[in-house]
């Protein structure tokens, strides 16, 4: 068999809920009816049936197709949103085929982040499913000449109550599609849910065990070129020289050109090498000998950042939350003899997102100004942005620019920035050829934007009259004010996961912004990942000072918060918290509310033959009503590993303005042999509104771990990361 670049076909994957993955082969380019314009075929074009609304299509033979309209990055939303629609529509998941949508404003907002998808779409998608059901019922009622209230729905069939008359959705869709969707449809009662709340298998996983799932990096199209980009080690330096001819002398290299990407208002320059194969592009890149002017950034180092942040921690900072009078409770500098004051400093470093699928993009800007994009993005609606650069009016953007939503090999917030798409668009626009840009792992690790670093000054005070005070002073850069002044206000994102529900007499939470040129960006749980570690570790320090068990201390001090109490009680029971551990064992607990959910972890450690291991983590999650319990568990397991990696593996450190860690040999990931063998996740059952799931499991893991280290060794870990073997 001869491998032929031109006969590669792209596959649209249509996955049935039963798990069968059927692949429909098609060429992305087909000639339109006048044979002169190229028509791009998108998934929507291949759906069989009559569309009732942008999400739901039903064929006359009864096949139900529901669009997965937001990107799937591992969180299970490919199935999650269609499941919510299917529930109210009154069909089983076996009757539904889920199809990945392309980007279009008809779906509303398609971006994902902030553990927001189910939280924000739960009600709208239920309403949409219910409204669709109601027009189908209306169509049946009309046919029978009865009132809609005399009809009921079961598994895609409308029944006339008290008779044998039945009409399947397929027979009703033509007339139902002509009816207007009701604005206020009747929703099901939670007790009648057949899909929501049940563990269902994810249909997208079939393609993820046989290699057929299409990620952005897998995009294939005829005549595809490959690009890699040489980048400035200090991110924002300017290029002074490079040898394009040397790069072009590599066989297969076609073009060398400067491109820019926008990172929070700054234009970072890179030199793209475009070639017939990715290997040729990388070989050409090696020959560029690029020189950069880094003068402006050469002073930046991790040491100087740490010193500056520690200094800022001494300042008063901006007020975020005040209860009682912390300064008074502390006394003037703790001089009064019956006051005990203790201060600890905590620090967390910059870290990288390190999605397993490195940043990439594929774009084809054609001669006729039509564009096809494969957007491995958490925010894929890029049509207008690209249209403006091609002089296409907004109202033609969607017709001329088609955007595929591939599966994402991780996102963690990183893919909410479309810098790789921006770069790839520039290259393809210049060449008018399809181009796939792949960032090397080294680019992905060193180029940011990163998770913020932060410094925390924690102070507790106890009086002889049992007055307890806590102050948490946060110093960190902020995401939303990187390219503008903060105007003396606390940026909205920086206080996530600081628990002011603790029933202390005096609480003070304050913030000082630390500004420098290192770009930072949303990273799984964002400030939850940096605030919870000092906060929940320090709660442990307080419990220790007061000689109380750390879990019981939390229970007493959160007694006015029933959801917290229930989570703690469940954790106490499920982890056998009160059982005495062996001498070489340790346990730690932490509880954090973030993104609308409450999660507590108990971490267990063991020292054996001089080696410390983490045999067990027990978790309790209260995320209100959930769609698929197995995915809540999976996300929590993932959060535990992602958080442990940040706590125990490597930091991104800076020297002369450049990140020092580049690939997985120096920026290491937690691996199978280090991961806890036993992870137990328990879910709370209640009727609270759905909370986030993709992030809330992360913030409590680092403090629970550090608290376990203290229990095991008496050592208080206040700087991340630390080496578990050196405690």
């Amino acid at each position: 068999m001869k491998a032929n670049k031109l006969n590669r076909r792209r596959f649209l994957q249509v996955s049935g809920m039963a798990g069968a993955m059927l692949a429909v082969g098609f060429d992305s380019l087909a000639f339109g009816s006048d044979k002169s314009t190229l028509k791009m075929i998108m998934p929507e074009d291949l759906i069989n049936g009559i569309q009732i609304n942008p999400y739901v299509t039903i064929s006359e033979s009864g096949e139900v197709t529901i669009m997965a309209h937001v990107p799937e990055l591992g969180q299970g939303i490919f199935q999650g949103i269609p499941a919510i629609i299917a529930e109210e529509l009154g069909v089983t998941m076996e009757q539904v085929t889920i199809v990945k949508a392309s980007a279009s404003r008809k779906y509303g907002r398609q971006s994902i982040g902030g553990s927001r998808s189910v939280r924000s779409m739960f009600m709208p998608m239920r309403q949409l499913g219910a409204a669709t059901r109601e027009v189908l019922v209306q169509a049946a009622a009309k046919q029978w000449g009865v009132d809609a209230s005399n009809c009921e729905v079961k598994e895609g069939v409308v029944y006339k109550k008290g008779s044998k008359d039945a009409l399947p959705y397929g027979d009703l869709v033509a007339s139902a599609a002509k009816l207007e969707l009701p604005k206020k449809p009747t929703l099901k009662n939670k007790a009648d849910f057949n899909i929501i709340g049940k563990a269902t298998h994810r249909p997208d996983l079939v393609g993820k065990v046989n290699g057929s799932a299409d990620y952005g990096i897998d995009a294939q199209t005829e005549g595809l070129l490959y690009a890699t980009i040489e980048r400035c080690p200090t991110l924002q330096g300017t290029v002074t020289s490079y040898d394009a001819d040397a790069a072009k002398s590599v066989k297969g290299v076609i073009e060398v050109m400067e491109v820019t990407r926008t990172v929070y208002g700054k234009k970072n320059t890179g030199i793209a090498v475009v070639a017939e194969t990715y290997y040729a592009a990388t070989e050409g890149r090696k020959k560029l000998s690029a020189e950069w002017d880094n003068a402006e950034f050469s002073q930046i180092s991790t040491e100087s950042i740490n010193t500056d942040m520690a200094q800022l921690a001494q300042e008063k900072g901006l007020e975020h939350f005040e209860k009682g009078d912390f300064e008074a409770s502390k006394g003037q500098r703790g001089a009064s003899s019956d006051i005990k004051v203790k201060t600890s400093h905590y620090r967390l470093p910059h870290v990288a997102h390190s999605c397993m699928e490195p940043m990439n993009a594929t774009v084809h800007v054609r001669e006729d100004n039509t564009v096809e994009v494969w957007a491995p993005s958490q925010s894929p609606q890029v049509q207008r942005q690209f249209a403006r650069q091609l002089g296409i009016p907004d109202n033609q953007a969607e017709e001329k620019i088609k955007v595929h939503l591939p599966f994402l090999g991780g996102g963690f917030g990183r893919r909410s920035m479309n810098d790789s798409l921006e770069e790839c668009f520039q290259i393809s626009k210049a060449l008018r050829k399809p181009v796939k840009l792949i960032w090397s792992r080294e680019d992905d690790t060193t180029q940011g934007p990163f998770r913020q670093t932060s410094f925390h000054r924690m102070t507790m005070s106890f009086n002889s009259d049992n007055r307890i005070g806590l102050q948490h002073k946060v110093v960190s850069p902020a995401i939303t004010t990187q390219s503008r002044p903060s105007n003396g206000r606390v940026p909205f994102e920086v206080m996530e996961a600081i628990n002011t529900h603790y029933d202390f007499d005096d609480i003070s939470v304050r913030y000082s912004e630390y500004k420098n040129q290192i770009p930072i960006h949303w990273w799984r749980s964002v400030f939850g990942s940096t605030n919870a570690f000092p906060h929940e570790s320090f709660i442990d320090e307080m419990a220790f000072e007061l000689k109380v068990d750390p879990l019981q201390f939390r229970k007493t001090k959160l007694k006015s918060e029933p959801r917290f109490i229930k989570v703690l009680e469940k954790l106490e029971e499920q982890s056998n918290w009160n059982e005495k551990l062996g001498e070489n064992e340790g346990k730690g607990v932490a509880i954090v509310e973030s993104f609308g959910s409450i999660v507590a972890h108990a971490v267990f450690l063991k020292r054996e033959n001089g080696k410390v291991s983490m045999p067990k983590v027990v978790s309790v999650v209260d995320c209100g009503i959930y769609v698929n319990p197995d995915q809540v568990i999976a996300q929590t397991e993932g959060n535990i590993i992602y958080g442990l990696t940040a706590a125990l593996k490597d930091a991104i450190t800076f020297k002369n303005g450049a990140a020092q860690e580049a690939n997985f040999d120096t920026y290491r990931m937690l691996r199978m042999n280090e991961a806890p063998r036993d992870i137990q996740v328990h879910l709370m059952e209640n009727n609270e509104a759905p909370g986030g799931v993709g992030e809330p499991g992360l913030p409590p893991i680092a403090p629970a771990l550090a608290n376990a280290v203290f229990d095991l060794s008496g050592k208080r870990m206040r700087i991340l990361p630390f080496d578990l073997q050196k405690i």
Partner: protein
Amino acid sequence: MASYKLNINSKEYTIEAEPQTPLLWAIRDEVGLTGTKYGCGIAQCGACTVHLNGNPVRSCSLPVSAIVGQSITTIEGLSEDNSHPVQKAWLDVQAPQCGYCQSGQIMSASALLEKNPSPSDEDIDQAMSGNVCRCGTYHRIRKAIHLASKEISNESK
């Protein structure tokens, strides 16, 4: 540029490539089998794992000229219909999240079970620690390997 004959999933492919081209890119871009993934390019993450004569190797770090005449299996060649015990176990425990690392994980696990049908937890640690999963599915992968191991031993009974 030279011409190479590659035996992948029991089919022969002829490709044109520079001798030092990593096997990974030949498989993905010349042959068009994109299930094998790029994660690091330096044999540190295992996303690119394929079988070379039955052994798990990192295709990102093998030049295409070095493997001529040997037999390669990629994730696409593991089974026709997702029926390999490892694939079945993976679906049973719903192991993948984003799924990007999973081709490599499955190739490492299937090679392990081929040699050692009933691996201990320590054997699993040893065989699987070269495969990074950023989504943190290690716990389920371990469960899936034990499950597949059970199925394999039931089959051979």
